């Protein structure tokens, strides 16, 4: 009886429901538009424009891409390699570095924590970072340009994992392992890693998403088409579309229209690039929310 809603509460509940539903629709409709366009017959797409439901249904864009799979397959392979390799290496380095910082018996922990933390407060800016990676490490037009700059290890994650070790793993457990004669590496591998799976899952997820979605490293460091990731391929196609548009407007420059896939195919590539995220999203959704909360509450 206690929780029975009064009249005004019922109205408010309905109003809230309508607002939430409308906002969810607002978030989803644009994605639906692209999905629909990728499934529309090209002629119909040109005649009727993009619609939320295909005016004439067709799988042509996807069958075309399947036949052209070499182009997109390569880019896909690069995206997958960069995402897996970058995430695995980055997470390994992160959780390893967090361990000493969580040990109170490590005399230098405050110094190292500060050195790491300081990188969150101050940075040298894009230009000097670009100079370091290109002039000292000559990373331009190598696959490592997609892996190393910016995303590999972040101070924020190191501190997140360090806090997790400190707050969620009893110090007595570490002491007991020490008494049993375990080395620090053994304690890390056999005690810390198995007991900190939740936080490892969180940072792995954010790192994987960052790598899969990244296009800025490629924008700065890659201009060889063989090294384009899916996002870079999409970026390149769109730049050609814009180039064609300006060229048409000025009636001067000739752009090879054959380089530009049709409307439907472009949208199909975008959907294929989005596919891995759509597949894992239902699984990681809860983790994602949890991660945002931990991240915001305790940095």
């Amino acid at each position, binding site marked *: 009886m206690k929780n029975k809603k009064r009249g005004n509460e019922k109205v408010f509940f309905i109003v*809230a429901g309508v607002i939430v539903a409308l906002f969810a629709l607002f978030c989803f409709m644009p994605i639906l538009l692209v999905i629909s366009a990728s499934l529309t017959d090209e002629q119909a797409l040109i005649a009727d*424009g993009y619609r939320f439901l295909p005016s004439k249904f067709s799988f042509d864009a996807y069958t075309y891409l399947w036949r052209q799979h070499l182009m997109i397959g390569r880019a896909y392979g690069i995206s997958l390699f960069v995402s897996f390799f970058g995430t695995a290496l980055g997470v390994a380095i992160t959780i390893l*570095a967090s361990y000493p910082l969580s040990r109170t018996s490590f005399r230098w922990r405050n110094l*190292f924590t500060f050195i790491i933390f300081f990188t969150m407060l101050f940075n040298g800016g894009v230009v000097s970072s670009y100079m370091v990676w290109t002039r000292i490490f000559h990373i331009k037009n190598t696959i490592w340009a997609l892996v190393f700059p*910016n995303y590999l290890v972040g*101070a924020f994650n190191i501190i997140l994992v360090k806090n997790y070790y400190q707050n969620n793993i009893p110090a007595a457990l570490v002491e007991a392992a020490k008494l049993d004669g375990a080395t620090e590496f053994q304690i890390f591998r056999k005690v810390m890693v198995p007991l900190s799976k939740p936080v490892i899952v969180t940072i792995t997820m954010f790192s994987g998403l960052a790598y899969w979605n990244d296009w800025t490293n490629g924008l700065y460091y890659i201009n060889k088409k063989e090294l384009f990731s899916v996002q870079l391929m999409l970026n390149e196609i769109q730049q050609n579309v814009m180039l064609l548009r300006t060229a048409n407007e000025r009636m001067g420059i000739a752009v090879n229209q054959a380089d530009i896939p049709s409307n439907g195919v472009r*949208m199909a590539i975008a959907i294929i*690039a989005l596919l891995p995220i759509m597949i894992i999203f239902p699984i990681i959704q809860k983790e994602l929310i949890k991660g945002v909360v931990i991240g915001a509450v305790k940095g």
Partner: protein
Amino acid sequence: MKKKHNLKRDIPFFIMLLPAMIYLLINSYFPMFGIFIAFKNINYQKGIFGSDWAGFKNFEFLFKTKDAGIMLRNTLGYNVLFIVLGIVLSVTLAIMLNEVGRTFLAKIAQPLIIFPNIISMVIVAYIVFAFLNAQTGFIDKTILKNMPISWYSEPKYWPVILTIVNIWRATGYGSIIYMSSIAGIDAELYEAARVDGATRLQQIFHIMIPLLKPTVVIMVLMAISKIFNSDFGLFYQVPMNSGALYNTTQTIDTYVYRALMELSDIGMSSAASVFQSVVGFVLVLTANKVVAKVDADNRLF
């Protein structure tokens, strides 16, 4: 004797820290020292170290250009707009989601409103293009019918377009943090108010919103500390790097990219990027001081 023993004990710890330290040295500390580039007149023949010192000349030149005014106005303007709208909309959405509770609607809606945030900006640009291109775009073809607008060459529309895209992308994600604050509010407070005859709306305005205030204040301060930064993807990718739109889409971040990569003007781009990081540093320190005063538990350091 004791000291030596300690050092030996610390060796495994140093080894564990080594990879991360090397990476941060290269990725963060080298660039910090690279700031000197902004004070040089870079000449590749002489090398970066051998180039002549320019003092503050690069900064003087930068701030004399028309670009400087435009990018500063845009960066600050969009940030203020996004902070205000972001707070109002995210808090409203969080409250509404909380009202809907654990219903079927909430289970469907929550994933949908978070999803735009985990899409890459390149794909966001495709989505926007699907609405706005003059030949086949949804808006031009279905709504405007015979009077298409060349969106990508008309700067005046972009403050609205970019704001809508930002709301679409960031509101749901932003609401997560407020929802977790709301979840932390003691339910007995509402119950007590309810017994006193307060309507739900009154409970929200007199209990929920006042209790959300500390979270809001912290979020605003954090956002202000990043007020000279902009989302490079939003301002570069969504307007498709269209030169005709610079007046309303150029921010410090897009300027740095264009000056460095498209104009090869290292002086200007490094001046802009160093200006951004130094001001950012000062603002982070200040914001942290203020947060520490408001709520010591939530200070950054």
